[in-house]
């Protein structure tokens, strides 16, 4: 879990896009007016997607102002949850699950392979800013192990070949991979949770 909010590279001011703001308002409408702080986590997701995949101090302050809460209330939440990045991250964050059920099916080899191929260790970002490698805890996909998550998408039943292909594809993808992406396949993620 990241705990520092003091990233001073993020001094750029931040404002939501019109669409982002509309999304925030729709989220706020789900909770009683007097408890609108409840919208904080979903709104931070929107903010993070609109700010290159990470939360700077100005981003968090903007969210606090939108909800009418103290800045500290946003910082304490943003520092608690593992999906919020408090430092710049790569365009595609590869989150490889390394918890026991995935470990039994080869996740360690997968992390080692990706690390070697990209020349980074878990937690690091490639110099070209394309990839961040993250070791993640159980992502609820143990029956399709080994697996990784990139943005909204689960990539399952991975092999070294499949992961090489994925890195090629992502490397030439124009858009950033965000958690809030709408997956375009009609079958959702097309995952194979069952045999």
């Amino acid at each position, binding site marked *: *879990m990241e705990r520092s909010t003091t990233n001073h590279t993020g001094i750029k001011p931040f404002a939501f896009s019109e669409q982002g703001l509309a999304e925030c308002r729709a989220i706020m409408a*789900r*909770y*009683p007016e007097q*408890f609108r*702080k*409840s*919208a*904080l*986590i*979903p709104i*931070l*997701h929107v903010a993070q997607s609109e700010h290159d995949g990470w939360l700077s101090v100005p981003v968090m302050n903007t969210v606090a102002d939108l*909800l009418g*809460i103290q800045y500290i*209330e946003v910082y*304490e*939440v943003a520092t*608690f*949850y*593992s*999906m*919020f990045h408090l430092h710049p991250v790569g365009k595609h964050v590869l989150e490889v699950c*390394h*918890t*026991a*059920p995935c*470990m*039994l*099916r080869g996740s*360690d080899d997968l992390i080692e392979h990706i690390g070697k191929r990209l020349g980074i260790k878990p937690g690091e970002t490639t110099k070209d800013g394309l990839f961040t490698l993250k070791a993640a*805890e*159980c*992502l*609820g*996909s*143990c*029956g*399709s*192990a080994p697996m990784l*998550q990139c943005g*909204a*998408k*689960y990539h399952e039943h991975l092999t070294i070949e499949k992961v090489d292909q994925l890195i090629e594809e992502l490397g030439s993808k124009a858009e950033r991979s965000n*958690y*809030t*992406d*709408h*997956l375009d396949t009609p079958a*959702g*993620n097309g*995952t194979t*949770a*069952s*045999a």
Partner: protein
Amino acid sequence: MGRQLLLEHINKPGIRGLEAYRANGGYRSVEKALKTMSPEAVLEEVKKSGLRGRGGAGFPAGMKWSFLAKPEGVPRHLVVNADESEPGTFKDRYLMERIPHLLIEGIIPSCFAMGVNTAYIYIRGEYFYVARILEQAIGEARAAGWLGRNILGSGFDLDVHVHVGAGAYICGEETALLESLEGKRGNPRIKPPFPAVKGLWQRPTVVNNVETICAVVPIVNDGGEEYAKIGIGKSTGTKLISASGHIKKPGVYEIELGVPVEEFINSDEYCGGISGGRPLKACIPGGSSVPILPAELIYRTAKFETRLMTYESLSDGGFQTGSMLGSGGFYVFNDTACIVRATWNHSRFYHHESCGQCSPCREGTGWMEKILYRFEHGLARTDDIDLLWDVQRRIEGNTICPFGDAAAWPVAASIRHFRHEFEYHATHPTKVKDPKHCEKEPIPFPERSYAG
């Protein structure tokens, strides 16, 4: 194949959409409950069914609902726990992704029974794409009049909202979940007061697992008594098992409670046997928080009775020789798996996920991880086993929430049943530096007996 109450239609084409769902009998339970039953009658059926919470603790659902406080003029809430973060568990995702209307359908008679007009589905942030699927299904249900004002002319109103989290295992614990839903850090609350009295926004709240709420659909359709005919004793109905690890066919299986564990592991209907043609070494039957069982105690209990997939049989023998059904996160180890490595892996998970409020949990999980790191990397001595035992012993029962116990139990069970592997690590430092040492040369099983 046993009866499939939840998964029967899961592979039907288009079942994610309302039309196909409805064509396969969907939303019948809503018609039945709202048109022909009183809220009390729905509650009565859930009580009769014997349904127990499917999130891990196995608390009877009907009883939980009847504890819900009903002060005048205060809204009540149902919060569906879709946080699903217990390692080894992936059944709720399967349900929500493939057949989202089943959950939405289940929410309606449940809320009707409890007099709830607003329900939230708290889903882990990583399942963002599943949240979208749920939102789409909610939109369809609302447009078709299954949600909203005056449903089916019954005078009953219901709104359902999806709320995404942001990555924190502890938010599966119900009071941490409520804090998170209020826009705060996921720090579990001190109980009492229980959520049934003061829950979301201090209002009376019931928190139930996704699968629990889905099971309300067949219970309302067929009646609680019919449901209770499936299973054995106090383990009634069907249960989804998330099967993974060293088996031939990982996946989600719906079993009638009471299937023998041996059949579940080896039958082609379920796991299809151990992968790699290797011997079975161990099994964690209910998610990472429950004690590991060694090979000798998986198919049979210490009393030499057939071990069954029920709450009672899996916990037979207590923590000495039993485990728990838990969330049904069932993972299997063959003899190429290193138990020390797996235990280190689990303790790293718990250290990472501790919310940090209680010293025994925050510090203890860190200590356990450090000691286990030393074992795994050939840096520990034999007497460090006792140190590790001592650390885990001081966590259990001394914390605000059961997370502390959940972090300690797996370590205790690993030492209890696999002490020889810890000794091996302490005495073979060069060998165990290779993380694949068990694949190359499995650690021999000791001669031992659990009888008596």
